[in-house]
């Protein structure tokens, strides 16, 4: 797939996502506000009722900052409302046209996925500005230019990893009548084991090494800690290599599933 075509697909998808602007911004504002409110009240209650000054290495202010980072980064890692794309193509027979396109299916879909990321980037920047101006981020957790650059790379890899996992799951549509449940199940697992629901350091100490051996931590916990300056450059580089290795594994899985699926794809949809 030529870079020009890739960028054209990306641009088309970005414009498509912004077609319902009022709805888009309302969803974004309410979603962000509610997620922040739930986290703030939950952890305020936790610190108040436990009488502790520190949980999982964070005080209350630090914990709220961690969640803000995760909520904002999460917008860039899991681009929303596209997850039905691949399976819908299979169910509705729309895959046929892609099979005769002079471009691969995966790069085409990935370009669309990145196009869907454009509104998320706008949201991220605006909400990050609001956070920077109005909320009191502890000095030790304030992102530096270096940590921001390191986080950028971690987010890019997290986005690719999340997409590859999503792609492999969507391809199950070649055999299953509905993969929506698998999509949702993926989110449940990723949010718990990836550090979206609670930081991994809050889990019991004996469980943390097991969680760190799984790919899910690279979705939220790792990029957030990189942004907040809690990960040293050497650990960051090691983390990126491991995350990219997971990308390789998932790409191979996706490729294998695609080949088998296409072989028995009838082209008529369901």
């Amino acid at each position, binding site marked *: 797939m030529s870079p020009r075509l890739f960028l054209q697909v990306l641009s088309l998808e970005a414009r498509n996502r912004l077609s319902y602007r009022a709805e888009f911004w309302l969803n974004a504002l309410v979603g962000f506000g509610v*997620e922040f409110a739930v986290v703030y009240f939950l952890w305020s209650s*936790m610190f108040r*009722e436990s009488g502790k000054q520190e949980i999982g290495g964070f005080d209350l202010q630090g914990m709220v900052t961690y969640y803000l980072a995760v909520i904002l980064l999460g917008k860039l890692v899991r681009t929303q409302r596209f997850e039905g794309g691949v399976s819908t193509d299979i169910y509705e027979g729309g895959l046929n046209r892609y099979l005769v396109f002079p471009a691969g299916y995966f790069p085409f879909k990935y370009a669309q996925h990145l196009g869907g990321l454009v509104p998320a980037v706008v949201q991220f920047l605006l909400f990050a500005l609001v956070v920077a101006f109005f909320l009191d981020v502890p000095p030790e957790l304030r992102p530096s230019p270096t940590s921001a650059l390191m986080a950028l790379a971690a987010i890019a890899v997290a986005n690719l990893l999340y997409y590859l996992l999503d792609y492999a799951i969507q391809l199950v549509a070649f055999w299953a009548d*509905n993969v929506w*449940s698998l999509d949702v199940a993926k989110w449940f697992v990723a949010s718990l084991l990836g550090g979206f629901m609670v930081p991994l350091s809050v*889990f019991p100490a004996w469980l943390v090494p097991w969680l760190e051996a799984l790919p899910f931590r690279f979705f939220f916990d790792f990029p957030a800690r990189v942004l907040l300056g809690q990960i040293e450059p050497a650990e960051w580089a090691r983390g990126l290599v491991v995350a990219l290795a997971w990308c390789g594994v998932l790409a191979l899985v996706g490729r294998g599933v695609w080949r088998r699926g296409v072989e028995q794809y009838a082209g008529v949809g369901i």
Partner: protein
Amino acid sequence: MTRYLRLYASFLRFSFSRSLEFRLDFFFRVGMDALWYAVHLVFFGVLFQHTGALGGWNLDQVLVFAAALFFVDAIYMTVFSNNMWMLPILINRGDLDYYLVRPVSPLFFLSVRDFAANSFLNLVLAVSILAWALLRYPEPLPLLSVAAFGVLLLLGALLTYTMGMLFTIPIFWLHSKSGLREVGWSLGRLGARPHRIYTGWTRTLLLTLLPYAFVASYPVYVLFNGPSWQALAHTAAVVGGAFTLMVLFWRQGLRAYSSASS
């Protein structure tokens, strides 16, 4: 009334036979909900590694709250969710006409026509978890409190549906993909935590205008603090008020509906 019950029995028969056509989806959906239950239980379990209480409740009480949440969600997923999912599509495509000419209430028809038989097993699972959470509770629970708790949970399921409809109905005017459904989902997350973790006007809001506290948290509060006429009347007023508002809103929506290509 008998006619509606007969009609609902037909919906059930049809839904069960159709769900058997998609067996893999049946198992995926069961697995998904079971995973959702497990994730929540682990989440609260992890929190209680660091505290002895959350929103004034100990772990045993929070487990009952989580189980109540599963129960309400399972009812919603089984009875209403498929219908709510289809509603924006029917409105935007102008396919509502078919339902408007039927000799039954279109709101009833469109809200409960598709019974998610593949979620029914999850309802059984949710009931089992709720029974387990109540039975393992170390202190005796008065029968009257348990009965009030059961009734309030059913009202919680009705409220979940009502709030979902209130955020979906604007599609009659917005003509977007899903109306304000995502806004409703986001706000619904406020009800997935014990309402007493919230303070000040946020808690007041959750007990009045955005009554998500009544989905599961308030019924659990009544279970452990004993039912009072005041609590029951408060719940009935909020759920009844929200339902009436939804029906009026629905009628306004139907007036704005312009059939095909709307």
